[in-house]
């Protein structure tokens, strides 16, 4: 199987298992506090790392590029307006503008 097929099949298997396990095996039971406490913090950790690797890396080196500026602008717009549509549109527009220079 190719890396693409494996990624899709693997993602499908784990997602289906996680979503099925919740209501059936754990339905109604309280999860341990330490588990919930870590899961709550997984989102900021992963999101921050994903944004950083997308925006500051070009392959295996660190680089500031057009999308760095675009995403920063999008973040600023989101912070002011709380509109995710405005955020992504501005990010794309600013990135395109920098590339056109």
């Amino acid at each position: 199987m190719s890396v693409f097929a494996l990624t899709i099949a693997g993602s499908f298997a784990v997602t289906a298992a996680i979503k099925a396990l919740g209501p059936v095996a754990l339905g109604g039971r309280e999860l341990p506090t330490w588990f919930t406490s870590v899961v709550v913090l997984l989102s900021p950790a992963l999101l921050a790392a994903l944004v950083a690797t997308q925006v500051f890396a070009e392959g295996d080196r660190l680089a500031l590029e057009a999308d760095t500026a675009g995403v920063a602008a999008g973040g600023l717009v989101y912070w002011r307006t709380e509109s995710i549509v405005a955020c992504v549109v501005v990010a794309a527009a600013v990135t395109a503008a920098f590339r056109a220079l």
Partner: protein
Amino acid sequence: MAGFILALSFGILAEDAGFSPVAAVIFSAIVFAGSAQFTAVSIVGAGGGAGAAVAAATLMNSRFLPMSAAVGPSFSGGPIRRALKGQAVVDHSWALSSRGDGTFDEALLLGASAIAYCTWIGGPAVGVLWGDVLGDTDKLGLDAIFPAFFFGLLLNELRSRRARGVAALGTALALVLIPFTPPGIPVLVASLASLVGLTRRARADVRERQEAEGEPR
């Protein structure tokens, strides 16, 4: 609207990463977990292996465990039916259907998810078709849509000082590792920042919030 733009950009990003158009649509159709899909595709696109991509997707999806467990008692039917209904749990429909007392409106959750599902499959299909018409999608800055969306989600998460600290730690771990490790590894290692949640004060805060909300989250 935001859902459609994202679904569309997922199709474009997946194609950039080397997925065939059909594979991109199948990915959305059978996985239906946007953040995990974007995570997996961006790791493959950066040259990472399927193992790292699936591991990162799993971590991203781990939040569905407490979320779908919370919904469980509100679902009717036997274990198999409830397991199938659990597949419909996504952030948006979960939040929308929460009654705020620990129970959930089953019909609302399934309905909201059904609409989101159609958008989620339609978007990549359009993105893949459009991709050819638009030509060089990089020129249009469309590759910035996904990190910008995640940046927006991240800003939402940064309400507490602890979350801000974890985000900063995750960023630092990822940036330090980028030059030295294969793609995908920096994100996986950065997830370790969430272990801050094991500290006594973090656990006490969770317990306090659970008691205040009266729901198992």
